[in-house]
């Protein structure tokens, strides 16, 4: 597990943390991580979560609001898939156990 150390002292462990940080981080700290030369958040998403699609979305738009939207959409999708799996497992369990 590679923690992301934000220059303001915060630590990020998950996409939820990333979302919260993007919403609250000050402009100066944000610019230190995201500028024309680099995008630390996009890199972290790629190497920590192996999420090429989200990483590409974050790299493409350096606008903070758009980055927030991309991460939020990703989290929503993960929750949706998790919920779907739970429902299917419950259905299977009910049928198998009679």
């Amino acid at each position, binding site marked *: 597990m590679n923690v992301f150390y934000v220059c303001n002292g915060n630590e990020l462990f998950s996409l939820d943390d990333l979302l919260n940080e993007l919403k609250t981080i000050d402009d100066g700290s944000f610019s230190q991580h995201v500028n024309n030369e680099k995008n630390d958040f996009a890199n972290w998403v790629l190497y920590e979560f192996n999420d090429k699609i989200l990483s590409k979305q974050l790299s493409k738009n350096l606008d903070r609001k758009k980055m927030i939207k991309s991460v939020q959409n990703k989290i929503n999708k993960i929750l949706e898939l998790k919920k*779907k799996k739970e*429902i*299917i497992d419950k*259905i*299977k369990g*009910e*049928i*198998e156990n009679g």
Partner: protein
Amino acid sequence: MDNHQIFGIVALKGGVGKTTLVSNLGASLVRDFQKKVLLVDANFSTPHLGLHLGIVNPKYTLHHVLNDNHSIFESIYQHELGFHVIPGKLAPFEINPLILKERLEPLRNIYDIILIDSSPSLNDEMYATMAASDQLLVVSSPDYPTLSSTIHAISIAKQKDAKIRGIVINRAYKKRFELNKKDIEEASGVKILSVIPHNVKVVSALSRMQPVVTNFPRQDVSISYKDLARSLIGEKKKKRKFFKKKEEELSPDAI
């Protein structure tokens, strides 16, 4: 494909499209692949296959065959689209469904394919189809209630040692809110053979008591039925000649 196969079309839920699948598969197998096909309406409680095909109030039906030792040959009707049909009787009629297999056996070597439209009821009516079939097609749609019925139907089929060819997903809108192929395959443990798209032309054709594959053959739904029919008989889709010709023109040998 082994010759003379009997496929049972099953689902533990009414309205998923079993009968529509049977009528369209039958029509496609004849029209597109020149097979000799028999469609059997073994949905004894609500036999609607005749209504899908313009056979209304037939004199002899499968019910007569399974009740009073009536000859099965007298209950076979030739449809204008080239397949044969054994319809059911709409009005209540007492029968012994479990002799279905025995009654169908004499027909096996006459037809290339027999498709049995089954009952959605979890009782002897469905078991009769399972017993009479070489393989089952389980019809489902991409939503939780139908998935639940599908898993249940597959579980019953396995208990009865019935061989399952695969699942046919019907009425798919192909939208994000639906369950996808992977969800259904993983949940059921059975391969999906085909995803038939939702198309209003199916209902339009039904209003004329005809299969959509003959009424609107170029629609995506008709092409899907044709592809499924092709897979059932073990044929592969041929590559389009246009692309093959282009490849030849571009090859160095052609210069």
